[in-house]
């Protein structure tokens, strides 16, 4: 279970004319490398190595940096570079540059580049670049979250276990729960909403895993908790501490994914019964949650969608409700990002992050996910193979078929090549290798011939032969006792004679 990871991040620092610090140790261009250690536990250590190349701008980059706004510059620079996954380019612009807005000294673009204002000396610049690199690749916290199985309890933050485990695929299920079809005829145009809002994000994430999306409508599906009526606001409230009990009764109706083995992400839209609406979710402080939604780590999210009461009481039931999908999808997409660990961390005010736009995900955020998943995959492979080895140690006469053996060899070599690629800074090939390693190791581990129940345990074999062993042991034990007795007497006798 011991593992030494070495993660190499290729970083290019490009100085625009007029931004080169005076105290540069060597003339441009030159290379430099910095290493830091992230300790996870006693046997797992992660070394991150930033391989920094310092150089000046080319003429075309200079032209691109002449753009009016940072966003335009980002677009223009993206055309020039063909940055592989995991690599970062940082452009240092002069302190007086008008590219960055007032008060902003770091701008992170949609792709794999950032603009940094040259302020202070080289030391200040280095510290800033370092912080930026961590934001755009990985931090000690994100690596610890990826290796959360190995981190001792109590050392992790509350968010660390929220992330979905790395898997080869995910199934996303949107469910509309209508507990009261008699009074509400709820319609949602989920097909269009998925194509418009979810699919671009998933297209981008398709590098990470396979995704399948489906939806269903469940009638007469109720929450497990009866909401409390609040007289002041004449509404119903679900308090934060009762939310854990909400999911279980619904879960039974969701239907598991019988046809695949991938983890399922559930997003539920709950339209409360007429007798229980409007329904609001209350947080720990007693204030109503503005989005009226909550998420459950590694499971999915629930949103409560209130139907406005009809103006006149003589409306014929059922009331036709068309769900506003923009509002719903905003919440679900935010929850999706949270579940994948893509939430944006708290950053100093001088950092400006470009919004990822329609794709919902910037290139460097994808890289972050890939770093974390690669590390997690390798850790999973090592855990799987270790427990397989433990099983083999326990049952000596287990039969390892040739195909299982070749899967194990494949897993080990893929994991090793993933480690090698990681330390060489090739994120994409490292991730692919780690995926192959996971597939092979799982196939070996879950091979039906390796079920330990198939093998007769040794202690039971002994039990069967007890009728033989017991009568045979009696004379042996008796004679042993006799020998001991005689030996003791022989010892006693000479002392008496003396």
């Amino acid at each position, binding site marked *: 279970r011991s593992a030494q990871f070495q993660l190499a991040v290729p970083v290019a620092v490009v100085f625009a004319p007029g931004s080169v610090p005076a105290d540069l140790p060597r003339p441009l261009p030159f290379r430099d490398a910095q290493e830091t250690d992230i300790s996870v536990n006693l046997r797992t250590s992660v070394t991150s190595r930033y391989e920094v190349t310092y150089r000046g701008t080319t003429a075309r980059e200079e032209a691109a940096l002449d753009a009016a706004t940072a966003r335009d510059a980002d677009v223009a620079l993206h055309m020039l570079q063909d940055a592989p996954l995991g690599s970062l380019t940082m452009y240092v612009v002069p302190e007086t540059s008008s590219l960055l807005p007032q008060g902003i000294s770091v701008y992170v673009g949609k792709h794999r580049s950032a603009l940094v204002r040259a302020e202070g000396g080289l030391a200040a610049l280095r510290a800033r670049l370092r912080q930026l690199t961590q934001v755009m690749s990985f931090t000690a916290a994100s690596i610890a979250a990826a290796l959360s199985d190995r981190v001792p309890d109590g050392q992790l933050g509350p968010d660390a276990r929220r992330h979905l485990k790395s898997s080869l695929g995910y199934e996303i*299920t949107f469910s509309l729960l209508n507990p009261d*079809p*008699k009074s509400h005829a709820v*319609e*949602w*145009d*989920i*097909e269009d909403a*998925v194509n418009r809002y979810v699919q671009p994000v998933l297209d981008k994430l398709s590098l990470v895993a396979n995704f*399948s*999306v*489906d*939806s*269903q*409508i469940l*009638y*007469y599906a109720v929450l497990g908790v009866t909401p409390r009526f609040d007289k002041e606001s004449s509404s119903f409230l679900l308090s934060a501490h009762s939310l854990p009990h909400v999911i279980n009764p619904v879960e*039974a*109706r969701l*239907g*598991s*994914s*019988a*046809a*695949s083995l991938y983890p399922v992400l559930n997003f539920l839209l709950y339209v409360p019964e007429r007798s229980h609406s409007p329904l609001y979710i209350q947080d720990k402080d007693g204030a109503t949650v503005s989005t009226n939604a909550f998420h459950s780590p590694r499971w999915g999210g629930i949103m409560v969608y209130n139907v406005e009461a009809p103006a006149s009481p003589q409306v014929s039931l*059922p009331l036709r409700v068309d769900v506003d999908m923009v509002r719903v999808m905003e919440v679900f997409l935010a929850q999706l990002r949270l579940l994948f660990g893509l939430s944006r961390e708290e950053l100093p005010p001088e950092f400006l992050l470009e919004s990822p736009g329609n794709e919902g995900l910037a290139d460097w955020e994808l890289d972050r996910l890939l770093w974390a998943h690669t590390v997690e995959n390798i850790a999973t492979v090592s855990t799987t193979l270790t427990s397989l080895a433990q099983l083999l140690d326990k049952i000596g006469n287990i039969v390892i078929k040739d195909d299982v053996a070749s899967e194990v060899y494949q897993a080990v070599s893929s994991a090793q090549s993933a480690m090698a690629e990681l330390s060489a800074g090739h994120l994409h090939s490292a991730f692919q290798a780690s995926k192959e390693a996971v597939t092979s190791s799982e196939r070996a581990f879950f091979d039906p011939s390796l079920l330990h129940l198939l093998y007769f345990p040794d202690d039971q074999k002994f039990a*069967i*032969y007890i*009728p*033989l062993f*017991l*009568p*045979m042991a*009696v*004379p*042996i034990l008796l*004679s042993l006792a006799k020998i001991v007795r005689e030996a003791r007497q022989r010892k006693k006798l000479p002392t008496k004679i003396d």
Partner: protein
Amino acid sequence: MAAVGALVQLLLLLPAVLEAAAPGGTQRDTLREELLLSPLPAGDVAATFQFRTRWDADLQRGAVSHYRLFPKALGRLVAALGVRELHLALTQGFWRTQAWGQPPLQAPAGAELWVWFQPTVTDVDKAWKELSNILSGIFCASLNFIDSTNTVTPTASFKPLGLANGTDHHLLRYAVLPREVVCTENLTPWKKLLPCGSKAGLAVLLKAERLFHSSYHSQAVHIRPICRDASCLAVSWELRQTLTVVFDTFSSGQGKKDWSLFRMFSRTLTDACPLASQSKVYVDISPKNKEKDLLEVTPPPTSIHEAIVQGDKRTYAVYDLLSPSLFNTSRSLNVQLKWKRPQDSSELPTPVLHAQRYVSGYGLQTGEISTLIYNTHPYRAFPVILLETVPWYLRLYVHTLTIITKGKENKPSYIHYQPAQDRRRPHLLEMLIQLPANSVTKITIQFERALLKWTEYTPDPNHGFYVGSSVLSALVPSVIAMKDVDVEQSPLFTSLFPSSDGSSYFVRLYTEPLLVNLPTPDFSMPYNVICLTCTVVAVCYGSFYNLLTRTFHVEEPSRGGLAKRLANIIRQFRGVPPL
């Protein structure tokens, strides 16, 4: 040719695309629910629930992933495994055709699964295995025990019930598990597939404790593609969930044949499922023996429906739960039926086709399976397809197969026999037999019982081994000419099997499952042998050990043993000097 094919496909696709583009105002799936209550000749009452979800979308193209009324679990299964038609039935008890008449939907005791796969499926056996495993998870049934030893590919008996172009029987798989016990854990997932669950509509009557307190319980799921409209250019998918239960009201009702919904289900109906476009209760009030007004149903039905069902003219009282007038007077509907006059149930109308099967012979080596097929039609002969699947451990002697009708040998016009392979596949025997009018046909075949390996015995092997029901499929000539019916309009209970023409109707019957004893070893014997041998070895070892380790030395007789002392006492009495 390819271009034409592509064009046709494009034309087929076009309406689907157009419909998909339309805003979600029009519902593309509809639900119909129906309950048929029919008093049986012997005094029992059969209740048949049918829930039909029709979805105007093509599941196969894979583009569909947004479900409304159609259950997602089944839809994904159909799409992922290339299923064209799926029929699963879980049954407890046996439908007594002789006493109860022709069943609306019969299923063999235990679990029955038959599936047609799409021609695009390359490895049918793998898909079949996967499908049975997933279904066993969905329905909590032991369908995962379906393997090659109980799966057959019938050539003639099971034709697709839905839309099909080409009936290559290599795409068909059929399996029966006669040992399967059906209970609540199978009913709950079945109810969960209904859009309204058991919360509203007819499904509120499905209370497990009443349903399983009955003579016969059979629940089924049928999925098939059907024509979307009369022109049949596009495909819709139909899911039928059926549940048949037979209550013995005669013995539980103090010898009276009267019944009500509440007496049978201990619930009454209060509303229709709000998602259903049709929700009806049919009560069979057909006059028997030309005597009208023998029975009385309350409350008064909303309408009367007359139909020709299985060659018989039937009259049904219909309660439409969606009609507002029904719940005007009372808040709940409790259909009651009263017989005005006690009628003698001595003469039961015998169904045209019925069958019996039993195993005969003595000893544990050989035996004989006999099947009796009755054709009680007074003047018409008709052919019947008999499908017999026998596990490999009963080795059939095909040369002993005899078919005798009215004392003469009856030569089947078609025989398909696939011999069994030990531990690999069962026997499959399919025959097309002509049944003369008013006749009994006896089919016998002898078998030998095989010895199993000791790990192959089921738990409780002395109970015996089941042989699944044999299947009879026939087009029975109808006495009354039938009209062609529109599937969308007619009641559900008449529309599962496609009717061929007006002169005959399709019947599928299942015979009794057989219970055969196999030579069973004493399973504790190995352990007994181990114990005995070990004891013998241990005793031998002990004495040898003693012999080898003890040191023997001669002991001087000191005062003599007990015998000597006794002898001396006796000698003292006698006055003789001691030894």
